[in-house]
C-alpha cells in the first residue's frame, strides 16, 4: 500500500458539511480530510448519514452548507455563495471521482464493453479505439474480457458489480466512492467484489468506502470513521476504532453487526 504523506495537502477536504431532507437534518456539520492513498471505511447504522455524505462529495446531493476542496475545485455550498458549483464544474469534478453504487446501475441496453467505453468517449473525448483498448485491459484484469460483448443481464451480480467498478476506473479517477457495493449481492458473490477493491487499495487508489463489511474495514482500510446521527464520532486506524471503540454507540453497533454476520454466514473475519 502506498504510504500516506500527511504533510501534503489533502486530496479531499470537507468542512462543516450540512444536508437536510425536509425538516430532517441528515448531516450536521461533517468535516473530513482525505489524503491521497488513504482507504477510509465509513461505518454506521442505516440512517446515520454515511451514504448521504458520500453522495454529497460528488454532489449527487447538493449540500445546504459547507466547504469542499478537491484538487483544483473549491466549493462553498452556502446559499448565495459566489463559489457554489456550476453544472460544468460538477461534470468536470465527477469525471475525476469514480462512484460505485449498491445496485450496480449498469446500463442494460449496452454491452459490457459499451458500458465501460461510454463515459471515456463522451466525457473525456477519448478515441473509440483507445477507449476499447483501455476497457479490454481492465476487463482482462477482472477476468471478464470474454464477456465484453454480453449484456449486463447475462452476468451474475458479482460480475456486474465488478464491471461497474471497471466502468468507473476507465475514467482514471483520482478518488473512488463505494456506496455499500456488496449489500445487494448474494453472500457467495461478495468475496470477488471485495477482492477487487482490496487490490485497488494495494495499488494506492484513494477510496471512501461506505460498508457493513467490518472485515473489509479492518483488513483493507487505512482508516475507519464511525457515523452516528449525522456526526463523525470516531475516526482513526481501523484496529483502534474497531478493537477499542470509545463510545458506547460504536460498541453496540459493532456487537450488532458482528453478531448478524456470525449468525448469518459464519465467515466474518475471513474476508476479503
Amino acid at each position: 500500500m502506498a504510504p500516506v504523506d500527511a504533510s501534503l495537502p489533502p486530496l479531499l477536504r470537507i468542512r462543516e458539511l450540512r444536508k437536510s431532507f425536509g425538516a430532517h437534518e441528515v448531516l450536521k456539520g461533517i468535516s473530513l480530510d482525505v489524503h491521497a492513498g488513504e482507504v477510509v471505511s465509513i461505518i454506521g447504522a442505516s440512517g446515520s448519514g454515511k451514504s448521504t455524505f458520500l453522495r454529497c462529495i460528488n454532489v449527487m446531493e447538493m449540500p445546504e452548507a459547507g466547504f469542499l476542496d478537491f484538487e483544483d475545485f473549491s466549493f462553498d455550498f452556502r446559499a448565495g455563495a459566489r463559489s457554489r458549483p456550476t453544472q460544468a464544474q460538477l461534470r468536470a469534478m465527477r469525471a475525476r471521482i469514480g462512484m460505485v453504487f449498491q445496485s450496480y446501475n449498469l446500463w442494460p441496453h449496452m454491452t459490457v464493453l459499451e458500458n465501460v467505453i461510454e463515459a471515456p468517449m463522451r466525457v473525456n473525448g477519448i478515441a473509440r479505439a483507445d477507449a476499447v483498448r483501455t476497457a479490454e485491459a481492465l476487463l482482462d484484469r477482472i477476468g471478464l474480457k470474454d464477456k465484453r460483448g454480453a449484456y449486463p443481464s447475462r452476468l451474475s451480480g458479482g460480475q456486474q458489480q465488478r464491471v461497474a467498478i471497471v466502468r468507473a476506473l476507465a475514467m482514471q479517477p483520482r478518488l473512488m466512492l463505494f456506496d455499500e457495493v456488496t449489500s445487494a449481492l448474494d453472500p457467495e458473490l461478495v468475496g470477488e467484489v471485495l477482492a477487487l477493491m482490496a487490490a485497488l487499495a494495494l495499488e494506492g487508489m484513494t477510496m471512501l468506502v461506505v460498508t457493513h463489511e467490518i472485515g473489509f474495514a479492518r483488513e483493507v482500510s487505512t482508516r475507519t470513521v464511525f457515523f452516528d446521527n449525522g456526526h463523525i464520532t470516531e475516526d482513526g486506524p481501523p484496529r483502534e476504532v474497531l478493537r477499542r471503540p470509545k463510545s458506547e454507540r460504536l460498541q453496540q453497533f459493532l456487537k450488532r453487526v458482528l453478531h448478524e454476520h456470525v449468525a448469518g454466514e459464519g465467515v466474518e473475519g475471513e474476508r476479503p
Partner: protein
Amino acid sequence: MTFSEWLDFFMPYVPGFLHAAWLVFIITLLVIVVSWICGLLVALGKTSSFAVIRQAAAFYIWFVRGTPALIQIFIVYFGLPQLGLGLSPFVAGVLALGVNGGAYVAEIIRSGLSAIPKGQVESSLALGMSRHETLRRIVLPQVVRIILPAITNEAISTLKNTSLLSTITVVELTLYAQTIIATTFRPFEFYAATAVIYLVMTTMLSQVAAMLERHNARYV
C-alpha cells in the same frame, strides 16, 4: 351468383379500394406524426416548472381522454369555421385525430420515463455525463423499448380511428365502401372486404412492432 360472376362484379372496385387503403395509410402516418409532436410537448409540459403550463397539459389530457374522438373531429371540422378557421376535411381530420392521439402518447411517454430506475441516471451523471447526454444515450433508448408495445397499440387505434373521418367526407376506406354500397346494395360483401383490408393493415403494423420488439429484447 357463381364465383366467376362474383369476381367479375367485384374486380372493378379493387383499384378504388386499394387507393382508399393507401389514403388510410397516409392519414395514419400523418396523424402519428402530429400526435407525437403533441404528445412530446404535453409530456414535457406536465413536468414544467411553470404551474400554468402543467395545468394546461393536464387539462388537455383530461379533455381529450374524456370526450369521444368523433365529437373532437366535429368540433375541429364543423366548429372551428364558426371562429373563422375553416379547414379542408383532410386537414381537419388529421389535426383532430393527431390532437386526440397526443393525449395518449403523452401518457405513454410519461409512464415510460417513470419506469427508468433513478440509478440509471445517477450512474451516468456520476461519470461526468451531461443531463442531455444522459437523456439521449441512457434514458431514451430504454424508454423506447419499454413503450414500444403501448405505442403499437396506439398506432393500431389511430389506423382504425381514421374510419371516423368518413363522417366529415374524407373518402377513406369506410366512406368509399359506403358509396359503393349505396349503388350496389351489397353491404355484407363490401363491409366484409373493408374489414379484411383494415385487418391486413393492422396485422402488418403488429408484425413490424413484433420484429422491433424482438430486436430490442436482445439485452433483456
